[in-house]
């Protein structure tokens, strides 16, 4: 049923399901509207053609009540959509700043700083057990075109760009956020299942835009830590191997 969605059609984030629901709601509204207006148009055409020469026509042009109806009904629909989606939008953009219902601060793991540049993603993680600092630290871990995140909880990345505007897009998690020069934008999301998800640039950023294809690797918290240890060991490799005795 979800065949038109990216990947296997399922959303692999908590919010993703809600976004899909919104999509379906809007799809239904739009379909009903489309079918209804098409039917009305068809009827008008048929009725107009079938009219007898001596029959009196009904002029709808300038009808006050009709105008009122088709102003109020769509407005109501739009207002409904606007209000109905507020919660999802808030969860996506604001609730990271808010506290939990019981007053405790939200637990969000700040995973990495993701910097888009023409035409790749450069990523900086804090060392295991340390928070991400705004400026590079000596023990930071780096990767390129491969963003690792832990599953099972809200994570956040800091999105930046080195040059022009780009957009961070993980279709299977239904996350999309523009990267704007001069800004550092927090992006919250979660991945419900470990796996590799396609990560793309969704803002035409130059001739190499299509090359900004990367991978988001969602791993269990343990695997994520293990990966960071491994990446750190590799990054701080001094190449010295004890000669075999």
């Amino acid at each position, binding site marked *: 049923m979800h065949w038109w969605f990216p990947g296997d059609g399922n959303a692999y984030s908590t919010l993703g399901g809600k976004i899909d629901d919104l999509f379906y709601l809007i799809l239904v509204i739009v379909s009903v509207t489309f079918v209804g207006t098409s039917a009305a148009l068809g009827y008008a055409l048929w009725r107009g053609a079938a009219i007898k020469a001596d029959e009196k026509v009904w002029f709808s042009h300038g009808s006050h009540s009709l105008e009122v109806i088709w102003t109020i009904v769509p407005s109501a629909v739009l207002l409904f959509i606007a209000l109905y989606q507020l919660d999802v939008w808030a969860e996506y953009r604001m609730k990271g700043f808010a506290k939990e219902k019981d007053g405790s601060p939200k637990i969000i793991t700040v995973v990495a700083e993701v910097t888009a540049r023409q035409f790749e993603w*450069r990523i900086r993680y804090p060392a295991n057990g340390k928070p991400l600092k705004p400026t590079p630290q000596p023990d930071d871990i780096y990767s390129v075109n491969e963003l690792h995140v832990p599953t099972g909880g809200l994570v956040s990345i800091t999105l930046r760009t080195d040059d022009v505007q780009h957009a961070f897009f993980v279709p299977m998690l239904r996350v999309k956020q523009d990267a704007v020069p001069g800004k550092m934008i927090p992006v919250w999301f979660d991945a419900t299942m470990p796996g590799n998800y396609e990560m793309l640039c969704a803002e035409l950023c130059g001739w190499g835009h299509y090359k900004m294809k990367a991978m988001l690797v969602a791993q269990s918290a343990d695997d994520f830590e293990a990966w960071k240890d491994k990446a750190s060991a590799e*990054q701080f490799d*001094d190449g010295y191997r004890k000669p075999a005795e």
Partner: protein
Amino acid sequence: MFRENFPISMPRFTRTGFNVLVTFGLAVINSGCGEAPQAKFKYRPTTEDLIPEANKAVVKTLTEDFGTPEKLVAWERFPVDYGGVKGTVAANDGPAGAFSVTLDGDAGKIAKGASLLWVTGSQAGGKSAEATVKSFNAVTKTLQLASASTAPVAGDRFIVAFGEDMQLGRVVYMKNCMHCHGVTGDGDGPTGKFLNPRPRDYRNGKFKFTSTQSQEKATRDDLHRIVQYGIPGTYMPSFLLLGKRETTAVVEYVRWLAIRGEFEKRFVEELTNDYSESVIVDSIKKAQASYEEKKRNKEEAEKPLSESKAKKEAAAAFKKYVDDKELDGAIEETANLLAAAWTQSETPEVSVVPTSQRVEDTPESRERGRLLYMSNTTKCYTCHGPTGRGDGAATEDFWDKPGTSVKFEKRGLHDEWGNPLKPRNLTLGQYRGGRRPLDLFRRIRAGIKGTPMPAFGETVLKDPQVWDVVNYVMSLPYQQKQPTAVKHPAEVVAKNEEKPAN
């Protein structure tokens, strides 16, 4: 234009004394996207400057031994993995055209329709028509050919799907790299002009960020790393998701382009002194001047040759050069040299490996490193500046073009390709050749090839001293407290996290 289904043609002997030369044919199968412009290898200006006879000989050699982008030629003398599975006929016992074989490699590559080349035996050397595989039975190891030509005998060597990887490499290169690095690998692709630093021109056979000693070529692994992770701070992007097979293939193609380019360079250098038009014109001009000088002084003098006569003489000399097999000798010599160099780079002996562990990164070690950095034995500061910002005194000077006494028009250092080059700003923590301590160790110990960044290995610095310098260099980005004018969202979030409840 560059699809993956280009057929391969049979071996071809161009010159005796050479190993097997094989061409990958390219009957252009056009599937409805219109004629694409033909891709061509460009020649160096020094090649174009040769007298027509010599130019023709160089172009002929390059075309026969390396082919064109549309029709590659695999010169087996070079250590390039062109791809394919080699095997030996075990016994010719089956029905016509079928025989059992032993394979050196992966049988998975043998598909119906793959071409088969005979390397040894009565059919080798292009004497038989190209053979095609009809079927291969992996269990009985029986190969059935589409047509039964003269029967092979046990022990005959063959290659199936020869050149497959090379063709894949070409496709990957044309899709992903050509627009910067150029069809010829001269760094002059359509986008190349607009980039700083310029894309690498492979034709010097030199790569900057390698694991080998300062006079050696790059290894496959070095190039693999570059393609996977890109070069931070430049326009060379990361191709991490390219796929293992594709990456390996494109690395092989880049090596081949580098070999082709350097072959042309060295070969033409052999000829330039005697057979280049501009050299001939120059020498006539000089001779004319001295002739006139002498005449003015009423000395006895011989009138120099006219230009056309001099060229005719050069052409005659070149003919003798060819007849005396000296041209073949030059080709042989150049090929030998390159084959040896590219083979040697893969050997462990030339790899730069620290003989001692990284010195512990203590303030004392950094201080020792700083003193070395500021000392006149290394002179790091003259290029990288006393504070490491890449603004040393050397960037203010005008430097000679290598091997001449002509100065560059621009101030500051240049690399071997003639492009202006700034010493790295070491306070940014951006390392083009990789950020592992090992990478920096290699940069300092073996230098950066093709650039003024010298090698400080054994002669100037011992390994523990190199480590002290590495520790100092790696501490530079974190020395001064950077002002945090913008409030970082990570900080905001982190604060939220740290704040106690309520």
